[in-house]
């Protein structure tokens, strides 16, 4: 019954305690929130945890959400804050850090050219500092404007632009180096 409802109706229903309406919201946004978390954390299990926690936190704070604001920006901001906390925790518990690997795509015999390129980009992306990686993810995966990215990451719009172009420059340098190691 919720599938066809618009977002505002779903949020109103959620506020009235209909967790199933919230379930529909989760369904609509889970990929986007997960993509963002993966961008921050580079670890699938952690990203899933934080995505789950972000929807819980968003729900319990839903009364504070202003319906005139874009919902996605609000929920992304919550997720970004949780990711930052997790990164801070990892810094103090370095054993917890796990490199993000994507199984199944590194077998050279089966890898077609496109996958190969993706593996290279993924490896390069994962070695970027998160300050440069997350704006790239929010821009190219979540398709957000510079202003929205700035709101979510709490940095000025100009800094978002600089980080995106610096991030891309770093990626290009890494990819070029890999192609021509000399």
């Amino acid at each position, binding site marked *: 019954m919720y599938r066809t409802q618009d977002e505002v109706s779903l949020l109103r229903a959620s506020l009235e305690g209909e967790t199933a309406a919230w379930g529909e919201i989760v369904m609509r946004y889970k990929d986007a929130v997960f993509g963002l978390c993966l961008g921050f954390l580079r670890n699938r299990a952690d990203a899933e945890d934080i995505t789950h926690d972000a929807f819980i936190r968003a729900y319990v704070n839903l009364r504070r959400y202003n319906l005139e604001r874009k919902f996605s920006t609000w929920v992304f901001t919550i997720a970004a804050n949780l990711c930052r906390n997790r990164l801070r925790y990892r810094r103090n518990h370095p054993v917890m850090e796990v490199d993000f690997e994507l199984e199944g795509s590194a077998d050279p015999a089966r890898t077609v050219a496109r996958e190969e390129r993706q593996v290279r980009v993924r490896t390069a992306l994962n070695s*970027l*500092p998160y*300050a*440069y990686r997350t704006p790239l993810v929010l*821009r190219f995966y979540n398709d957000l404007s*510079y202003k929205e990215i700035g709101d979510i990451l709490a*940095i*000025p*719009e*100009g*800094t*978002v*632009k*600089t*980080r*995106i*172009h*610096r991030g*891309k*420059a*770093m990626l290009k*340098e*890494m990819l070029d180096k890999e192609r021509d190691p000399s």
Partner: protein
Amino acid sequence: MRGRRPIALVAALACIAALGIATAAVTLDDFGRVLAAIPIVNEARVMAAFELGLKSSCCGFPVSETYRLLERLAAVSGSAADKEAIVLAITQAIEQGIPVDSLLNKAFEGLARAVPLAPLGQLLEQRLRLLLESRDLFYSRGIFRASPGASVAAGATALQPSQFDGLLSNFGDALGDYLESGGSPFEGQQIYDGVHERLTQLSGTVLTTSDVDLVFSRIEPTDLTQVVLAALR
């Protein structure tokens, strides 16, 4: 005089080489130690920024120079809070992706001239604001775009990121020099001429002539008045 030039050259080379050798491969731990010697209060924030700097050292962050500045700050006498203001100006530049070379240069010069640390910190903060405002002007005029496409040929609609540091650094530095030489923020044409002169002198060497032309085809003297006033606010 010709005969003694090689000796002088060797001496100069030795002096400059000594700067590089002392801190060949600086690590985050080295930064931690020198910050503890200053010492500073916002250590976590500063360390996070230096970690970011180290990770992006491939792309212009001057690691050893920054480290040597911290060493000099630790050695000089003065209040820790004043020293921290200087460190925070550099920190903010790293956080915001702004080139730090012109800030480092001013800081080194100020320390060499034994300028009191408090006004030195204020001057660096002002220069940082000039850089940030200049950067925003570049973006708003399409001189740089966050994702400028693949073309690099003359006639491109935006400059490539590789030009960003050199251009922004010299642009902001020229504005700072203008103000510190007693120039008025309301003389847009004078500011414009000063920046134009500076970038033109460098075109063909560290900047390309077409890049400099593109910059000045997109900004007006009034833009520079606004940049300077915003930085002074």
